[in-house]
């Protein structure tokens, strides 16, 4: 009898596994663009947004992250996969997509940088630690490159005159491939 449960569980799992890219934009969703992202992000933290762009890079460690650009790579917008999205497949690279999600802020302060530095100096590096930039080869960075990145962020923090640096991203709830 209990053998019958196995296909039932599988079927249930399959029914719920489709990552539908239905875009249910709420009325208060703000449409933003890649090129104006940095200017607009500050006022939209934790609010629903829609953003369109070309997929420049997807994270090969589980596909939980991608970067959007628009024509040029000078501005890259980080997008993380929310609970509803299984992964961002590498086949999305180069596609134009429209994302609906929530705008998130990551604050980097001295404490964060100290912990990151300690993590990087461990022999077993942790990919999850640190800041994802989407730059070519950023996932294969060595220890020295990461330490250089930390040093540069320390300098930016000092020059900013604030106690933290803000990095903005979009947590995707759904997405649609436009072309």
């Amino acid at each position: 009898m209990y053998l019958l449960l196995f296909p039932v569980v599988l079927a249930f799992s399959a029914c719920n596994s489709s990552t539908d890219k239905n875009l249910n934009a709420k009325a208060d969703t703000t449409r933003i663009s890649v090129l104006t992202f940095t200017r607009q992000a500050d006022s939209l933290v934790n609010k629903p947004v829609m953003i369109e762009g070309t997929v420049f890079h997807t994270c090969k460690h589980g596909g939980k992250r991608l970067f959007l650009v628009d024509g040029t790579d000078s501005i890259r917008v980080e997008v993380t996969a929310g609970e509803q999205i299984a992964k961002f497949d590498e086949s999305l690279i180069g596609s134009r997509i429209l994302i609906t999600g929530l705008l998130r802020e990551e604050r980097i302060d001295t404490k964060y940088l100290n912990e990151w530095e300690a993590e990087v100096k461990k022999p077993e590096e942790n990919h999850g630690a640190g800041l994802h930039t989407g730059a070519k080869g950023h996932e294969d960075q060595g220890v020295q490159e990461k330490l250089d990145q930390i040093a540069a962020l320390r300098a930016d923090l000092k020059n900013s005159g604030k106690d933290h640096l803000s990095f903005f991203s979009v947590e995707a709830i759904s997405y649609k491939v436009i072309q």
Partner: protein
Amino acid sequence: MQAKTLRRWNNILHRDIGYLCFGMTIIYAVSGIVLNHFKSGDFMHPDYSKSYHEYTVPIPPSGAVDQTYVFKVLEKVGERRHYKSHITGEGYVQIFLDNGSCYVDLNTGAAQLEKKTTRYVIREFNLLHYNNLKRFYTWFSDLYAAGLIILAITGLFVLRGKNGIIGRGAWLTAIGILIPALFLLIYW
């Protein structure tokens, strides 16, 4: 309950859970090997195999990259029909294709064509291994993990006598525990 009845149930559980766990064990084992070596840098990407080809292409005469120039590059590398989109950066253009991309250094004309081939089946195994699906799959994979624990414990008591857990089995079980412990002692 008598020892004989206990052992009978133990063996039934071991047999049936073993059958049920077969599929998931193969999935996790195959994907585990791929992900292990991908993380240590042996694979460029766990889901795709990639190959690289070098070309020299003309530099755009005016320095500006437009669609005509992009198509000219693609004609040269034989990928015109796979064009998807392109972006420009400081001194380069990256052309995205259905099956890869082409990176052109606009200062030297050096072009690198990256072609990728999907590792079907392994890609789906990795998706399950990473638990990208979430939802009910999380519970199902927890159930599988619990099944493995039961499988391991019942496995100790399948045989009686000199090959059982009080004989040869004890030594082999001890070795199986000592090996990972040894790795921790040496490398950690």
